[in-house]
Protein backbone atom coordinates (compact mmCIF):
# COMPACT_ATOMS: atom_id res chain seq x y z
CA UNK A 1 0.00 0.00 0.00
CA UNK A 2 2.93 2.31 0.59
CA UNK A 3 4.31 1.37 -2.83
CA UNK A 4 0.95 1.69 -4.56
CA UNK A 5 -1.47 3.78 -2.47
CA UNK A 6 -4.31 3.81 -5.00
CA UNK A 7 -7.26 2.12 -3.30
CA UNK A 8 -11.03 2.03 -3.45
CA UNK A 9 -13.78 1.41 -0.93
CA UNK A 10 -17.15 0.13 -2.05
CA UNK A 11 -20.20 0.62 0.18
CA UNK A 12 -22.89 -1.54 -1.37
CA UNK A 13 -24.34 -3.78 1.30
CA UNK A 14 -27.17 -2.02 3.23
CA UNK A 15 -26.53 -4.29 6.22
CA UNK A 16 -23.12 -2.74 6.69
CA UNK A 17 -23.28 0.66 4.99
CA UNK A 18 -26.61 1.80 6.49
CA UNK A 19 -27.18 4.00 3.42
CA UNK A 20 -30.17 2.12 2.06
CA UNK A 21 -29.77 0.35 -1.23
CA UNK A 22 -27.49 3.00 -2.68
CA UNK A 23 -23.99 2.00 -3.74
CA UNK A 24 -21.01 4.30 -3.33
CA UNK A 25 -17.46 3.76 -4.55
CA UNK A 26 -14.71 5.92 -3.08
CA UNK A 27 -11.39 5.94 -4.91
CA UNK A 28 -8.52 7.58 -3.14
CA UNK A 29 -4.99 7.62 -1.84
CA UNK A 30 -4.25 5.45 1.19
CA UNK A 31 -2.04 6.71 3.99
CA UNK A 32 -0.89 3.78 6.09
CA UNK A 33 0.32 4.44 9.62
CA UNK A 34 2.17 1.44 11.02
CA UNK A 35 4.29 3.41 13.48
CA UNK A 36 2.50 1.97 16.53
CA UNK A 37 0.76 -1.32 15.81
CA UNK A 38 -0.24 -1.84 19.46
CA UNK A 39 -1.75 1.54 20.30
CA UNK A 40 -2.02 3.63 17.13
CA UNK A 41 -5.57 2.46 16.48
CA UNK A 42 -6.91 3.05 20.00
CA UNK A 43 -8.17 6.54 19.27
CA UNK A 44 -10.67 4.95 16.86
CA UNK A 45 -11.95 2.37 19.34
CA UNK A 46 -15.19 4.25 20.05
CA UNK A 47 -16.16 4.00 16.36
CA UNK A 48 -15.29 0.31 16.31
CA UNK A 49 -17.28 -0.32 19.50
CA UNK A 50 -20.33 1.41 18.00
CA UNK A 51 -20.19 -0.93 15.01
CA UNK A 52 -19.31 -4.10 16.90
CA UNK A 53 -20.16 -3.79 20.62
CA UNK A 54 -18.86 -7.27 21.38
CA UNK A 55 -15.35 -6.07 20.65
CA UNK A 56 -15.02 -5.31 24.37
CA UNK A 57 -15.06 -9.04 25.12
CA UNK A 58 -11.94 -9.45 23.00
CA UNK A 59 -10.42 -6.32 24.47
CA UNK A 60 -10.86 -7.67 28.01
CA UNK A 61 -8.65 -10.61 27.06
CA UNK A 62 -6.22 -8.61 25.02
CA UNK A 63 -3.21 -10.73 25.97
CA UNK A 64 -4.85 -13.83 24.53
CA UNK A 65 -5.34 -12.22 21.15
CA UNK A 66 -2.05 -10.46 20.61
CA UNK A 67 -2.19 -10.97 16.86
CA UNK A 68 -5.71 -9.56 16.70
CA UNK A 69 -4.79 -6.28 18.33
CA UNK A 70 -1.88 -5.39 16.11
CA UNK A 71 -3.41 -2.94 13.68
CA UNK A 72 -2.23 -0.62 10.92
CA UNK A 73 -4.34 2.53 10.63
CA UNK A 74 -5.20 3.33 7.01
CA UNK A 75 -6.67 6.70 6.16
CA UNK A 76 -8.04 7.18 2.67
CA UNK A 77 -7.95 10.60 1.04
CA UNK A 78 -10.88 10.58 -1.44
CA UNK A 79 -10.07 11.58 -5.01
CA UNK A 80 -13.18 10.44 -6.85
CA UNK A 81 -16.58 9.25 -5.67
CA UNK A 82 -19.07 7.33 -7.80
CA UNK A 83 -22.65 6.84 -6.61
CA UNK A 84 -25.37 4.58 -7.95
CA UNK A 85 -28.83 5.64 -6.79
CA UNK A 86 -30.80 2.66 -5.44
CA UNK A 87 -27.77 0.51 -6.20
CA UNK A 88 -28.76 0.28 -9.85
CA UNK A 89 -25.39 -0.39 -11.45
CA UNK A 90 -26.95 -1.06 -14.84
CA UNK A 91 -27.07 2.75 -15.07
CA UNK A 92 -24.07 5.08 -15.10
CA UNK A 93 -23.11 6.46 -11.68
CA UNK A 94 -23.05 10.07 -10.57
CA UNK A 95 -19.40 11.09 -10.38
CA UNK A 96 -17.96 13.58 -7.93
CA UNK A 97 -14.48 15.04 -7.59
CA UNK A 98 -13.06 14.44 -11.04
Amino acid at each position, binding site marked *: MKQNPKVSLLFSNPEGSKVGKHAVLVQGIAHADDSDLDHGWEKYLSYWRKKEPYIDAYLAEREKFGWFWKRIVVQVEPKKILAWKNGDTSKS*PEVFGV
Partner: protein
Amino acid sequence: MTSLDYHRLGNFRYAIITLVGDDGFPFSVSTDFKIMPDKKIVLQKPAQPSKLDGKRVNVLFNHITGLPGGGYGDRRYMLVWGTTHEHHGTLTFEPEKVSEWDEKILPFDQYCAKTAPQGAKYLGKLQASVEA
Protein backbone atom coordinates in the same frame (compact mmCIF):
# COMPACT_ATOMS: atom_id res chain seq x y z
CA MET B 1 -8.39 -24.34 -9.85
CA THR B 2 -9.39 -24.65 -6.22
CA SER B 3 -12.74 -26.38 -5.93
CA LEU B 4 -15.67 -23.99 -6.09
CA ASP B 5 -18.77 -25.08 -4.19
CA TYR B 6 -21.56 -23.95 -6.52
CA HIS B 7 -24.26 -24.88 -4.02
CA ARG B 8 -22.89 -22.51 -1.40
CA LEU B 9 -22.09 -19.93 -4.07
CA GLY B 10 -25.78 -19.95 -5.01
CA ASN B 11 -26.69 -18.84 -1.49
CA PHE B 12 -25.19 -15.41 -2.05
CA ARG B 13 -27.49 -12.64 -3.24
CA TYR B 14 -25.14 -10.51 -5.28
CA ALA B 15 -21.60 -10.20 -6.58
CA ILE B 16 -18.95 -7.47 -6.60
CA ILE B 17 -16.70 -7.25 -9.64
CA THR B 18 -13.29 -5.63 -9.08
CA LEU B 19 -10.59 -4.82 -11.57
CA VAL B 20 -7.86 -2.21 -11.91
CA GLY B 21 -8.97 0.70 -14.08
CA ASP B 22 -6.94 2.57 -16.67
CA ASP B 23 -6.20 5.23 -14.04
CA GLY B 24 -4.61 2.62 -11.77
CA PHE B 25 -7.35 2.74 -9.16
CA PRO B 26 -9.28 -0.40 -8.25
CA PHE B 27 -12.83 -0.18 -9.59
CA SER B 28 -15.51 -2.20 -7.82
CA VAL B 29 -19.15 -2.52 -8.76
CA SER B 30 -21.93 -4.66 -7.35
CA THR B 31 -24.26 -6.60 -9.60
CA ASP B 32 -26.63 -9.56 -9.74
CA PHE B 33 -25.59 -12.99 -10.87
CA LYS B 34 -27.02 -16.40 -11.59
CA ILE B 35 -25.61 -19.88 -11.91
CA MET B 36 -26.74 -21.78 -14.97
CA PRO B 37 -27.47 -25.54 -14.95
CA ASP B 38 -24.12 -26.15 -16.70
CA LYS B 39 -22.45 -24.20 -13.81
CA LYS B 40 -21.71 -21.16 -15.93
CA ILE B 41 -21.71 -18.01 -13.81
CA VAL B 42 -23.59 -15.21 -15.56
CA LEU B 43 -23.16 -11.68 -14.23
CA GLN B 44 -25.57 -8.87 -14.96
CA LYS B 45 -23.52 -6.47 -17.01
CA PRO B 46 -22.97 -3.16 -15.17
CA ALA B 47 -22.92 0.14 -17.08
CA GLN B 48 -19.33 0.61 -15.97
CA PRO B 49 -16.72 -0.57 -16.73
CA SER B 50 -17.96 -0.53 -20.33
CA LYS B 51 -15.43 -3.10 -21.53
CA LEU B 52 -15.22 -6.34 -19.60
CA ASP B 53 -14.48 -8.87 -22.32
CA GLY B 54 -11.33 -10.83 -21.54
CA LYS B 55 -10.62 -8.89 -18.35
CA ARG B 56 -8.86 -10.47 -15.40
CA VAL B 57 -11.06 -9.64 -12.40
CA ASN B 58 -11.94 -10.82 -8.96
CA VAL B 59 -15.54 -11.37 -8.01
CA LEU B 60 -16.51 -11.18 -4.37
CA PHE B 61 -19.62 -12.88 -3.07
CA ASN B 62 -20.27 -11.89 0.53
CA HIS B 63 -22.88 -11.89 3.25
CA ILE B 64 -23.40 -10.48 6.72
CA THR B 65 -26.45 -10.30 8.97
CA GLY B 66 -26.82 -7.32 11.28
CA LEU B 67 -27.39 -8.37 14.91
CA PRO B 68 -30.02 -6.58 17.05
CA GLY B 69 -27.44 -5.50 19.64
CA GLY B 70 -24.91 -4.37 17.02
CA GLY B 71 -22.26 -6.22 15.13
CA TYR B 72 -22.73 -8.94 12.56
CA GLY B 73 -23.38 -12.64 12.26
CA ASP B 74 -23.50 -15.25 9.50
CA ARG B 75 -20.35 -13.75 8.01
CA ARG B 76 -19.17 -15.49 4.88
CA TYR B 77 -17.50 -14.76 1.58
CA MET B 78 -16.08 -16.34 -1.51
CA LEU B 79 -13.44 -14.34 -3.38
CA VAL B 80 -13.02 -15.74 -6.86
CA TRP B 81 -10.35 -14.74 -9.38
CA GLY B 82 -11.02 -15.32 -13.04
CA THR B 83 -11.82 -13.84 -16.42
CA THR B 84 -14.97 -12.17 -17.73
CA HIS B 85 -16.26 -12.81 -21.23
CA GLU B 86 -18.87 -10.81 -23.14
CA HIS B 87 -20.89 -12.55 -25.82
CA HIS B 88 -24.02 -11.07 -27.39
CA GLY B 89 -24.65 -8.86 -24.37
CA THR B 90 -24.18 -11.66 -21.83
CA LEU B 91 -21.37 -11.41 -19.31
CA THR B 92 -20.00 -14.72 -18.12
CA PHE B 93 -17.35 -15.30 -15.51
CA GLU B 94 -14.78 -18.06 -15.81
CA PRO B 95 -13.47 -18.85 -12.30
CA GLU B 96 -9.85 -19.83 -11.78
CA LYS B 97 -8.98 -19.50 -8.12
CA VAL B 98 -11.03 -19.12 -4.96
CA SER B 99 -10.45 -18.20 -1.34
CA GLU B 100 -13.29 -18.22 1.13
CA TRP B 101 -14.50 -18.11 4.71
CA ASP B 102 -17.78 -19.08 6.34
CA GLU B 103 -17.92 -18.59 10.09
CA LYS B 104 -20.51 -21.36 10.42
CA ILE B 105 -17.95 -23.77 8.99
CA LEU B 106 -14.85 -22.27 10.60
CA PRO B 107 -15.27 -19.95 13.63
CA PHE B 108 -13.41 -16.63 13.46
CA ASP B 109 -10.64 -17.45 15.93
CA GLN B 110 -9.92 -20.78 14.19
CA TYR B 111 -9.94 -19.02 10.83
CA CYS B 112 -7.32 -16.55 12.08
CA ALA B 113 -5.17 -19.36 13.46
CA LYS B 114 -5.45 -21.34 10.24
CA THR B 115 -4.51 -18.42 8.02
CA ALA B 116 -1.74 -17.02 10.24
CA PRO B 117 1.02 -18.94 8.35
CA GLN B 118 -0.33 -17.60 5.07
CA GLY B 119 -0.25 -14.08 6.52
CA ALA B 120 3.29 -14.56 7.79
CA LYS B 121 4.38 -15.80 4.37
CA TYR B 122 2.80 -12.77 2.69
CA LEU B 123 4.43 -10.34 5.13
CA GLY B 124 7.78 -12.08 4.60
CA LYS B 125 7.55 -11.57 0.84
CA LEU B 126 6.37 -8.00 1.34
CA GLN B 127 9.30 -7.25 3.63
CA ALA B 128 11.72 -8.57 1.04
CA SER B 129 10.21 -6.32 -1.63
CA VAL B 130 10.31 -3.31 0.70
CA GLU B 131 13.99 -3.88 1.46
CA ALA B 132 14.90 -4.45 -2.21
